[in-house]
């Protein structure tokens, strides 16, 4: 009878193609909605986390307390004292100037820095030209390496601004700088939202051409820790050296680990949010499936009455509807999962900052299981109700 019923169920599904397809669609959408939304959220979270780790671990950022006028700048002596540690320190000063190219005037942050900046700040990569070298630094050459955003603002669509000249105006001083390189945009999700209109120049040129900047004093010190060292231990050492040289609360150390732990909180909130969205989509998808199963099976009350009148036992009828529901929901669920995998994969390929393709098997499993269960329960329940009626009551059903 089981085999016979399987045949009956399949032919019932096939003979009522439209109804079967619509039911199938309900299940597909239910599973797809849950899997896709939750997984998309997880992919985004994973993308951002991996990026922060990529740029950030093994770096420190030491800065004076800007709100506190008594908090002194760091000096060359501080830098000297710290150099004993397995770290590289970037001597860097920044200020805002006005850059002029033809008739474009743009406010630009100019960083006076050293030629080893690309090694210390691992996020720097060049798209065009070169970074300034020791020789440029030694002769305080008036050369500038633009950020991607600055290049965009100053030269718009010009394919290769290397070799072009920029007039920098700062506190009455005007100097012409030559563009020698352009940086890559800051990668990923962080870069997408950051607006970094800046240019790097040799530190000596910075002191010469921008008046009023004290030489050998720094508001902040970007530090890169050697890759084989423990970041936490080095941070403690930095702290103990600085504590001997300055009042304890006159500076702050920011670490990417710190940023990450902040981000962890965000991630937890994000995941709670995703869980909520998942639960809601599961509910919505489930109700969709419930609805279509309930309607399509209730609509068949007359058919059930007829089958009973012709000698089908309630058990046989339930078996047929169970098989139909299982076949529909399992096929629908599989299509839904496949569709969401393909869609997510496509999104990861297309959206640049989503570079990690993660699929949580729990999410897929839950979506699939809940959909199948909902479909089966609400496919069999109305059939059971109809099969418990006398044939004539079922046949009379409108």
């Amino acid at each position: 009878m089981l085999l016979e019923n399987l045949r009956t169920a399949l032919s019932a599904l096939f003979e009522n193609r439209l109804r079967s397809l619509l039911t199938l669609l309900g299940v597909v959408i239910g599973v797809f909605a849950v899997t896709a939304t939750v997984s998309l959220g997880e992919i985004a979270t994973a993308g951002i986390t991996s990026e922060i780790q990529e740029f950030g671990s093994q770096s420190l950022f030491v800065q004076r307390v800007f709100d506190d006028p008594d908090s002194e700048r760091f000096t060359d002596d501080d830098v000297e004292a710290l150099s004993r540690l397995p770290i590289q320190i970037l001597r860097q000063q920044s200020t805002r100037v006005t850059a002029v190219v033809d008739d474009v005037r743009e406010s630009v942050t100019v960083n006076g820095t050293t030629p080893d900046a690309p090694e210390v700040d691992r996020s720097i990569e060049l798209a065009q030209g070169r970074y300034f070298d020791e020789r440029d630094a030694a002769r305080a050459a008036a050369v500038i390496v633009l950020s991607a955003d600055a290049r965009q603002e100053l030269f718009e669509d010009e394919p290769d601004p290397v070799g072009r000249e920029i007039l920098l105006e700062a506190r009455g001083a005007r100097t012409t700088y030559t563009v020698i390189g352009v940086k890559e945009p800051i990668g990923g999700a962080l870069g997408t939202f950051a607006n970094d209109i800046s240019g790097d120049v040799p530190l000596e040129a910075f002191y010469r051409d921008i008046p009023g900047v004290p030489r050998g004093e720094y508001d902040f010190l970007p530090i890169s820790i050697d890759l084989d060292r423990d970041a936490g231990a080095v941070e403690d050492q930095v702290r103990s050296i600085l504590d001997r040289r300055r009042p304890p609360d006159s500076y702050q150390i920011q670490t990417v680990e710190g940023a990450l732990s902040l981000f962890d909180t965000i991630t937890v909130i994000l995941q709670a949010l995703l869980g909520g969205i998942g639960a809601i989509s599961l509910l919505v998808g489930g109700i969709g499936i419930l609805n279509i199963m309930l309607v399509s099976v209730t609509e068949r009350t007359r058919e059930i009455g007829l089958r009973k009148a012709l000698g089908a036992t309630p058990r046989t009828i339930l078996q047929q509807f169970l098989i139909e529901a299982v076949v529909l929901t399992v096929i629908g669920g599989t299509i839904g999962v496949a569709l969401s995998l393909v869609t997510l994969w496509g999104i990861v390929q297309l959206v640049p900052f989503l570079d990690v393709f993660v699929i949580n098997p729990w999410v897929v499993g839950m979506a699939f299981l809940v959909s199948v269960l909902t479909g089966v329960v609400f496919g069999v329940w109305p059939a059971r109700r109809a099969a418990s009626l006398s044939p004539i009551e079922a046949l009379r059903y409108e």
Partner: protein
Amino acid sequence: MTAEEEASGSTPVIEARGLRKIYRLGADVEVHALRGLDLEVLAGEYAAIMGPSGSGKSTLLQILGCLDAPSEGSYRLAGEEVADLSEERLSQVRNHRIGFVFQAYNLLARSSALDNVALPLMYRGLGPRARRATATEALERVGLADRLHHKPNELSGGQKQRVAIARALATEPDILLADEPTGNLDSRTGQEILALFGALHAEGRTILMVTHEQEVAEHTERIIHIRDGVVESSEVVAQRRRPSVGDAAESRAGAAHDATGWGR
């Protein structure tokens, strides 16, 4: 017991005592469709049930066909009290003993004539091949040999009714119950259906038919009048043609087939 044995013994195949059926429409509206009805039908009888609309004739037929249960009273089918039957056994009775022809045909709309007729055979446990053969035979019998694979919406009303009859016949039931089998048909098609019933009766089947047309009822041997949920009168209109002798039944069946041209 086969139909033949029952017929020759003249035992009542249907024995209803004090049947009541109450439909509850809403909270406090009750419709008494049957009010203590008694009825006996002998094996091999061909009878018409007549009565004004609302008299309870369809309700009676449905109860006799085990499609609905009476609210009160006893119904014995071939000696078995139907109320005592389990759901499983009841399905078996519906499948083996009873062929029911609905006024509205009640065919599966998306299945072919052949599949519709084969459906009760599947519930009987017949294999696909046997089902096909038996269903084809039944459809040939009602003159639809060339419509096996047509779906109901490709058939005329008379053809649909004949598919429904073929479905009722395919299981070789003892009792054929028909609710207004000619009600939706033009008179010529109606005559054809009645001729088919005559032939089936001649084979020894017990046939009960609900109708409101005197002319249709006169094709039977006995007319049972129902009014207000009880039997008002029961008159024998024709000599009971007892198919006690096999040869006689054969020849009658043959004659009926010749008359309608369905015997080919």
